[in-house]
């Protein structure tokens, strides 16, 4: 995959009269792992939905391999694994039925077998035949992670992947992320716990009120006092 595998070009998104994202431009390089930071309401989830192709930008565009994702439809969906705040699964079906259904939609061979393998991998094999609505928050999160990974995506978009996970789940997810992405893969994740995010990320992006204010490596993160801004301890401009 060439550099600039996923590119945001002047992406803006408005919902009603409220502008959530304002002219965001950035080029994500393949083989890198990005940590998307920002306070609540800064536009992180909206940006994830736009990058996943779930929401169309109001203006600007997202490009994958120099092609507008709006023109790629299913071909782009096949390349991404997206974990969002919402479960995106059927609570009235069992964990196994959910994963097997989505595996089938993604064209995975032997969807039932693959679903069982991922349930085993995420420590949910014992609960495979239980309805998702009976799962705890952490178990639902594990199931959603399995769904994001089961078709072997090249781009992983993980919005708050550690939310609801216990220590064991967090460590398992870290391990999976490290294994899952090859040198060509791209990971973009958000986390309200930057320390946790930095355990897998190489680079950060900082959003504030829909504007991409800063990005760079860990040294720049410290230099630009992002952490203080996230905790409200600093009120200085970053760029």
């Amino acid at each position, binding site marked *: 995959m060439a550099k600039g595998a996923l590119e945001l070009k002047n992406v803006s998104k408005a919902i009603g009269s409220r502008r959530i994202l304002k002219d965001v431009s950035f080029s994500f390089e393949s083989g890198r792992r990005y940590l998307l930071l920002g306070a609540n309401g800064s536009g992180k989830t909206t940006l994830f939905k736009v990058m996943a192709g779930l929401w169309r930008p109001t203006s600007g565009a997202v490009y994958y391999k120099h092609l507008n994702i709006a023109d790629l439809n299913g071909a782009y969906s*096949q390349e991404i694994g997206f974990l*969002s705040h919402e479960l995106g699964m059927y609570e009235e079906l069992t964990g196994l039925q959910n994963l097997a*259904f989505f595996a089938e939609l*993604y064209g995975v061979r032997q969807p039932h077998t693959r679903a069982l393998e991922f349930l085993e991998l995420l420590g949910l094999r014992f609960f495979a035949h239980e309805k998702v609505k009976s799962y705890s928050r952490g178990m639902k999160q594990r199931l959603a992670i399995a769904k994001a990974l089961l078709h072997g995506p090249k781009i992983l978009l993980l919005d708050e992947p550690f939310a609801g996970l216990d220590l064991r789940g967090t460590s398992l997810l870290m391990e999976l992320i490290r*294994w899952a992405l*090859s040198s060509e893969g791209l990971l973009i994740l958000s986390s309200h716990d930057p320390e946790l995010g930095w355990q897998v990320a190489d680079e950060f992006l900082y959003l504030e009120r829909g504007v991409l204010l800063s990005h760079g490596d860990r040294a720049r993160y410290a230099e630009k006092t992002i952490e203080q801004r996230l905790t409200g301890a600093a009120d200085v401009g970053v760029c």
Partner: protein
Amino acid sequence: MLKRPSSSDSPAQRTLESANADAARISLAQRGLLAGAWAILKKDLAYELQNRETLVVLTVFSLVVVFIFSFAFDLAEAEAKRLLPGLLWMTILFASVLGFSKSMAFERRGDALSGLLLAPIPKEAIFLGKVMSSLLFLLASELVLLPLFFAFFSIKASFTQMGLLVLVLLLGSVGLAVVGSFLAAICQVSRQGEILFSLGYFPLVIPILIAGTTLSKSVLETSQIPPGPWLNVLIAFDLIYAVVCLWVFEYVVED
């Protein structure tokens, strides 16, 4: 792309590697319209077999309606044949509303629709799958409803009449399932969805109901489809709604 880790070969690595191998095989392959629709239909059937939610609700509703009507009207067979089509289609209309709201609630919980929209299948496959499952549930409820109406109102019908009536019910149900599934999708992506559903569904299905009732009445009274335009009206509305809804579905569910 999933990678081979440097050291040990754990079950986790093997699972991820086989996912990777699959990804390579199906790379950029878009799932077809029918394959996607079929998967969605199977999923809805699996849910219904497990929970029997929709069918139980529709059957109980049909039983109650037929029971009440049979007590409310004490009709001779000829009168019953004139009245039955209207009662039948009205019951089907409200049963369909119940069925669609169940289907909507199922897709809404856990934001399952977003999961579907992200899948590499044509958006139309989602619509087609939902139409097929809604139609199946509606036809199943009619299978219960029709014999009940005939039994409670003591109406005798020939095989020809039954065959023609089933044809009319099938054509009408296709239209109801198409319009209902389309509006149910709007309902999920709009904050005023449920109001939109009520506002849109009843006016849009009026031509189907009028054609269905007129044809059913003629079938029961004369054992034939009338020579007038009603059959064409029913088929035309089915086709128009199917084409328009399929065409605009993608735009409706975006955002």
